[in-house]
């Protein structure tokens, strides 16, 4: 019978796959993989410590391919230290979020290392950025950049575009598009984050609000209709974006 003290702990998130190998109760090897990229050893352990919630499985009697950690109390101390550091960082819980430069610019002062990171992270998932040597340091830089507003983390929206017919809404104001309540709710469920609407042919991004009884329609205010040169009944492709 296995004592359960030797084996492999498998942790899987949609973007990362982590393994922690135990041998006689000692953590001897850790590895994190995402596509082609692989991280091993202490950095991998640091990264796995930062995952807040993920499904896992323990496979007993699986031996490590090699040893990257010394085991013993040093590993436990390292884990405790990493956990304490992660606790001080405010990164989004979902590492599938994509990093991007904010649409609205502003002035911030950044060090050379933060600048280097900032230059490399646009359009990448958090998990992908953290999967590199010096994970905790990268996490700290990301935390700083996000706190300063130099970066923003948004969910990757993969909602197919919808074709809608333009419906004039008569009233003051502009920059607001209305869609049917049901469609709005469907998008909100899929995105789980604040979102706006991109009008495909015009390439304009507008605030989107739900409105009852307009299935298949895109309600646009008179001023926007004039600005976008759209008329009642025009077919417009729209896609929500974060």
């Amino acid at each position, binding site marked *: 019978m296995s004592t359960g003290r030797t084996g492999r702990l498998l942790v899987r998130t949609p973007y990362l796959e982590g393994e922690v190998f135990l041998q006689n109760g000692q953590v001897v090897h850790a590895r994190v993989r995402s596509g082609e990229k692989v991280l091993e050893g202490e950095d991998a352990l640091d990264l796995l410590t930062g995952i807040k919630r993920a499904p896992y499985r323990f496979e007993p009697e699986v031996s490590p391919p090699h040893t990257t950690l010394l085991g013993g109390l040093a590993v436990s101390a390292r884990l405790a230290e990493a956990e304490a550091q992660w606790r001080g960082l405010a990164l989004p819980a979902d590492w599938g979020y994509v990093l991007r430069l904010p649409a609205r610019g502003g002035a911030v002062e950044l060090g050379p290392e933060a600048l280097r990171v900032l230059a490399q992270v646009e359009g990448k998932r958090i998990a992908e950025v953290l999967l590199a040597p010096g994970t905790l340091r990268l996490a700290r830089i990301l935390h700083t950049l996000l706190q300063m507003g130099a970066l923003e983390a948004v969910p990757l929206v993969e909602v197919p575009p919808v074709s809608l017919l333009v*419906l*004039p*809404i*008569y009233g*003051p104001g502009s920059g607001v598009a209305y869609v049917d309540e049901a469609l709005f709710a469907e998008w909100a469920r899929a995105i789980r984050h604040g979102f706006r609407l991109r009008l495909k042919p015009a390439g304009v991004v507008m605030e989107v609000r739900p409105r009852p009884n*307009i299935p298949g329609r895109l309600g646009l205010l008179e001023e926007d209709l004039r600005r976008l040169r759209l008329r009642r009944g025009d077919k417009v492709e729209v896609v929500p974006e974060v």
Partner: protein
Amino acid sequence: MDILTLNEYLNRVVYGFPMKLVFLLVGAYLVIFQIRWFSSPLRMMRVSFSETLGAIRERAYGFGGQITPFQATMVALSATVGTGHLLGMLAAVLIGGPGAVFWMWLGYFFGTGTKFAEATLAVHFRRRFADGSVSGGPMYYLYRGFPRLRFLAYFFAFFAAVAAFGIGNLSQAGAVGGALAPLGAPPALVGLFLALLVGVVLGGGIARVARFAQVVVPLKLLLFLVAVVPLLVRYAGKIPEALALVFQAAFSPEAALGGAAGYSLFAAINAGLGRGIFANEAGLGSAPIAHAQAQVDHPVRQGFWGVTEMFMSFLVTSLTALTFIASGLWRGGGSAAEAASALFQAHPLGGLILAVTVAVFALGTMVSWGFYGEEAAAFLFGEGIRWPYRLTFAVLAFVGPLGGLEAFLAISDTLNGLMAIPNLLGLILLGPVVARLVYGFFRGEPWIPPR
């Protein structure tokens, strides 16, 4: 006092001059104080066109409901554009002279407010049922708008359900039979055809009625154009003169037409307002039953379709009147049928085009009125009445061309006029609701239906 004498008295009241003034005043009240056409007339006109003619290319797209706003308007137009637009119009000019046309236009103008309010309220107060169907019209806005005056809703529904059998069916079927008789069509055969057609179309519910109207209304307009355009071309040189005569005779018919002609200002106003009110049915409360079926996101959008319905009706009556006046045949007097016969003698297709046009006009009116009556009966007696009502309607459509039932026809004519009393009362009292809806619509607010 027997029932026919009472009926005659009531008929004089509901179609009398004072009642016509009431129609006009209600329309003016709605236009000026509630809808406020004049607050920004250009914007109102632009929106009106954008919401209706501008939306025609998307007529196939509803808001996921039973029929589109365009189809609802076609159902209403199918009922409205009837023989009254041809023979009724000729009769008005014969009685009131060319000046009657001006007063008719006045009736139409204020009638836009009435029709707008009717269509708007019909959508606002309609009931949506569990199967996705909707029902609406004056009986619903009276019932839901005035919980303490619900008897008005029942009165209206009773008048409409019975009137539909008479003026909406027997009289129309009689007109079809009468128009086709000179072409050798046996009345019994015409009756059988009408009964089958009406039965099949009404049996399919509002969706089939709408599809029928979507075909029959363009056909009506096409036939009308085929009938009128050659005459307009023939009398083209006299149209400006006819137009001038309309305005001259509107205020001083004696001076414009000569005292010996026997036309008075009262006759011009009375006959003109009569056409301007009863031809388009604004205020009678029939058309909103169709408008209520439209799937729109806001009741005011359907209100604008009501205005379009008036515009189409206005074009048909006005073209008929101008052609008749330009022909000079109105000076000859006589009955409307004789005048029509004389007018169409100059047409390349002769009386045939008149007969076919009258028959198609009456046919469309029958089907839409069948739906109106059925809705009113369902309001009174529940859903179970629909098939018995349809069958009775089909039987009467068969009887129509055979003639008879004059007393019933006379009573139903009065009931048709009586429909206006609860409806106009409702429109006055619910005017502020229309105003609020219009205000909200132009503030971009979504529509919140009443509970």
